[in-house]
């Protein structure tokens, strides 16, 4: 991330965001900011609140309390902001099995406000960038999980969002595809797109992220920079929070 980009006003601001799910608090008083070009790794054990947080940022779920701002504007009052500014790859990349890869891109493009020549141009570019040409006419229902992840990624990137939200994007990808995914994330960040990457794989965070946030039982326990050569330190911190149930105060120290 360049100094110029980090000095830019945040693309995303979460202000005391709280959400209950299935009768328990899934996310509580979450504060988070993300500048253009930043890549934030979101870590946490299962049930820590990562997917709930990402669903709220993507606009698929409303918070019970707190505010989410995109480019300084409250997107709970203006849901169309999420449509324009956010690209979201949910966990397991859901698809319409009866539609082809091309039809998926068309449907997502239209839902995100792209039409006519702009849609065709964006579709062509993303198919080429993610090397989806051989799959373009294949039905999504018969794609492998790895191919579905690539299709989901293409749908998330199609409208050139300012904020890319990736929930376990490396699921079912082979090592070569994981390498390509990392390259894509770096490329997006270099172009000024803010990226949130939720993962269980710590090495993914040290490989591509410049910041890491650790959620535990719905609360933010750590938010700080991360370096590529700092894997051991990240591991100690993560397991310290995840295994010992540390308090936020203890972890901040």
């Amino acid at each position, binding site marked *: 991330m360049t100094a110029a980009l980090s000095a830019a006003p945040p693309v995303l601001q979460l202000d005391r965001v709280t959400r209950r799910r299935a009768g328990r608090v899934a996310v509580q008083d979450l504060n988070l900011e993300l500048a253009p070009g930043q890549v934030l790794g979101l870590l946490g054990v299962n049930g820590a609140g990562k997917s709930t947080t990402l669903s709220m940022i993507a606009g*698929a779920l409303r918070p019970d309390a707190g505010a989410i701002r995109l480019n300084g504007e409250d997107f709970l009052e203006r849901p*169309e902001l999420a449509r324009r500014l956010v690209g979201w790859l949910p966990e397991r990349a859901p698809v319409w099995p009866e*539609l082809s890869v091309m039809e998926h891109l068309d449907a997502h493009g239209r839902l995100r406000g792209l039409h006519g020549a702009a849609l065709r141009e964006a579709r062509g570019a993303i198919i080429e960038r993610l090397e989806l040409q051989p799959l373009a006419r294949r039905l999504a229902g018969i794609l492998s999980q790895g191919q579905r992840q690539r299709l989901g990624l293409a749908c998330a990137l199609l409208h050139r969002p300012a904020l890319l939200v990736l929930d376990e994007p490396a699921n079912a990808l082979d090592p070569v595809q994981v390498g390509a995914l990392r390259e894509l994330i770096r490329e997006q960040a270099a172009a000024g797109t803010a990226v949130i990457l939720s993962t269980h794989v710590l090495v993914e965070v040290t490989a591509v992220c410049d910041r890491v946030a650790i959620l535990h039982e719905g609360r933010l326990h750590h938010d700080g920079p991360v370096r590529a050569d700092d894997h051991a330190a990240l591991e100690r911190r993560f397991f310290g929070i995840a295994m010992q149930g540390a308090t936020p105060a203890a972890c901040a120290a």
Partner: protein
Amino acid sequence: MTLLAVFRLELRRLLVQPLAWVLLALGLAWLGWCFTRLLGDFLAGEIQRAALPLLGQLAQIAFLVVPLLAMSTLAGERRNGTLPLLFAAGVPASRIVLGKYLALLPWLLAWLLLTLAMPLALAHTTTPDWGKLAAATLGIALMLAALAALAVAASAFTSHPAIAAVVALLLGLALWTVNLGAQMAGIDGGAINWLAMSTHGQNLLRGLVSTADILWFVLLVAVCLALATRRLAADKERG
């Protein structure tokens, strides 16, 4: 524009599913067979003696065909996990429901027109009662639209398309026959008769067009779509 995007998405999903074509083919094959049997009446000289019973047959199989056609509209989205994608695109629940409902209508209209084409192909050899035929066509169109709305509502309340189809079939039949007891007891008026779809549908099929009957169908469509919207909005709230 988001309504149009949902409409096009649903229409595409419908057209690429073999189920829609199989239903169309089987439905038309059955109606073609019925029409052939009714040709005897037609040869007696009155097109409506063939056309109106044919539309009646269409109404009967619509109770089964429409729920099967519409069962995946929302239940399928929930099962695939694609509903959050629509929410994340900022599409309000009302537009999701309306877009999906509207996408069913061209298919149903095509079914109705293809059925009508059978008796109308013979229209030049006789003098049909166009008014009566138009009223019956309007009645069937309203009935198909109402059954589709009922099926969309049923689809909004489950993740299993088969359950949605069964519930829509049972609700449709219940709505048609709710006044059966009253009819057998010789009661012609009252709320129970007003509630029954048969009261309003049969008037139109007989060629009697009344605003009250048309409004009953419009009201049913509105209530069903409102219920589906409410359920979908609750889904978004619950997550």
